[in-house]
């Protein structure tokens, strides 16, 4: 274990100086999350950030790819190279087929101790959060959750990880100065997809886990995939029409669904609507819901509280409909209509339906 034994005491007994033995930690790593043959897009989004950070530091980008004996980890590594990775650290083992905390914690912790990256990024998914907390505690290092911005602090060369705090009402920048690696998680869709260079290649390093099934207490008995018919994929939707409490009652959400349907999009909602049980929790957009990045976001009857804003402000085009001309949503929407969403939504639905049907006929 490379747990830092002696730490210099800084101001107020804080640990603000990097001990000599941790200065050897170099490189920016991303944990590659995959499931049933597919890499989670958040891993590529993180690779874009890792490349940027590594270029600032003048270091390399590595990926940790852990999985079962027969899983195509080399294929995932090749894909990672095209998104900016230089090195892939691969661990194949039968006990790594399907995520379990214990073997994945050991696998990732061992790789980090052996290769000593200075930064380790994971997706803030149910797997990434479960794993990151265990790995950071094993390594006794700092972990910053749900970051919305990652930079290198010019003075200390440390990772400056910015995240919303106090329910999304403020932002704070957090650094791990005296410990390595510096760990952070980022939610899906917070970072843009990096450009892909299909000619890029990299080095593959194979490692072993050193665990057998009988070592592992927790058994994965089954995996029940969600039925695709009721899967709500808000983070990756191109078009989202969202409703807030300005819609007055749950029945009026029908108007939101109708517009979303015409646009082939998803339906989102604010936290108060979800808490009131108007729509499913999976539809909540915001700091405690999903982060979305659609091409078009139409907000109907939403005031634009910061908790909601941090989840959707990266949308390419934001349209806001609200009766209150002073609603904060008009501060960051691109187009605004001061009016009753119950009247405006059907008009928009009709306008889009007519326009799209006319264009389809022209194309046919």
């Amino acid at each position: 274990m490379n747990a830092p034994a002696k730490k210099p005491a800084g101001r107020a007994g804080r640990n603000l100086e990097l001990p000599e033995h941790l200065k050897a930690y170099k490189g920016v790593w991303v944990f590659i999350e995959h499931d049933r043959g597919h890499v989670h897009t958040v891993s590529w989004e993180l690779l874009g950030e890792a490349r940027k950070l590594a270029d600032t530091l003048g270091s390399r980008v590595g990926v940790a790819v852990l999985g079962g004996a027969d899983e195509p980890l080399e294929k995932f590594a090749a894909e990672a190279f095209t998104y900016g990775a230089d090195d892939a650290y691969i661990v194949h083992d039968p006990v790594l087929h399907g995520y379990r905390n214990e073997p994945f914690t050991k696998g990732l912790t061992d790789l980090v101790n052996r290769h000593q990256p200075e930064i380790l990024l994971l997706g803030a998914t149910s797997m990434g959060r479960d794993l990151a907390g265990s790995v950071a505690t094993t390594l006794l290092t700092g972990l910053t959750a749900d970051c919305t911005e990652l930079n290198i602090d010019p003075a200390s060369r440390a990772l400056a990880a910015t995240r919303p705090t106090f329910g999304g009402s403020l932002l704070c920048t957090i650094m791990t100065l005296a410990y390595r690696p510096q760990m952070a998680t980022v939610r899906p869709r917070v970072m843009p997809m990096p450009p892909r260079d299909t000619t890029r290649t990299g080095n593959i390093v194979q490692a072993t886990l050193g665990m057998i099934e009988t070592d592992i207490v927790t058994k994965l008995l089954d995996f029940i995939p969600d039925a695709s018919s009721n899967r709500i994929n808000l983070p990756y939707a191109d078009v989202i029409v969202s409703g807030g409490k300005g819609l007055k009652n749950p029945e009026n959400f029908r108007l939101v669904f109708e517009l979303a349907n015409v646009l082939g999009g998803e339906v989102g909602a604010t936290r108060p609507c979800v808490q009131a049980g108007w729509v499913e929790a999976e539809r909540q957009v915001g700091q405690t819901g999903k982060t979305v990045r659609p091409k078009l976001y139409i907000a109907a009857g939403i005031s634009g509280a910061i908790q909601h804003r941090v989840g959707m402000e990266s949308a390419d085009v934001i349209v806001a409909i609200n009766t209150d001309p002073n609603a904060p949503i008009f501060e960051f929407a691109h187009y605004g209509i001061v009016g009753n969403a119950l009247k405006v939504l059907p008009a928009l639905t009709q306008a889009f339906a007519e326009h799209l049907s006319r264009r389809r006929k022209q194309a046919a």
Partner: protein
Amino acid sequence: MHIVVCIKQVPDSAQIRVHPVTNTIMRQGVPAIVNPYDLFSLEEALRLKDRFGGKVTMLCMGPPQAEEALRKCISFGADDAVLVTDRAFAGADTLATSYALAAGIQQIAKEQAVDIVFTGKQTIDGDTAQVGPGIAKRLGLQLLTYVSRIVETDLDARTITAERRAEGGVQVLRTALPCLITMLENTNELRFATLPAMIHSAGYPVRKWNREQAGIEDVSKIGLKGSPTVVSKVFGPTPRSEKAEMLDLDASSLRDVSVNLLQKIFTRHPTLEADLLMKEGS
């Protein structure tokens, strides 16, 4: 069965306001509540106690006034409550917090062995979801996060089977006791506190442990000193330079405004129209 449920007292974030000029949190008048995510774990613990008998012990790290949050849990049916409170814990990040809570659990386990530790999925003020996994790692407990349903508990075999929410599906996992579980939200409904229980909780002697009583000797593991992360800056979101272009409903008909808006959207995002035409619109 002895269950420890860890909770945190948090400010009700729905009522937090930020001072518009100084960007500081205005705490006055904001009520303190039990972290809402913790209550799903409390209810699940109480259900296990209803079925198998035993005891539910609450544990919290926080200032002396966090006693109220523990009392609240007693009113729902928890049997005992411990508040780990000491100025030395101030400024703890998630790593230092998991150390202090793990120490508290070890002290509680000296009185009676612990079968299951529950924590909330995350808190509403920190939102990190790191303390549960941290405690499990420190105590060497098996970890089941984001549990949507406890399928089966076998006290003879000392195993527990649970469904865990994962990306794109549900994992069915079986593990051995003792373990640490974090419950997913909306997986159960918290019972009501009865009037006698409320009266009982009002007078309940919540145990308050300082650092030594919590069994912590090494002060470098707790509070600011035990926290690898440093908050370097707190600031408000930057306002967008351009404000929304407003479309006036009074000047033209609703239909004209809608068509006008649609043209503006497609001009601003030139590829969007083609994307929409590709979709199966109706």
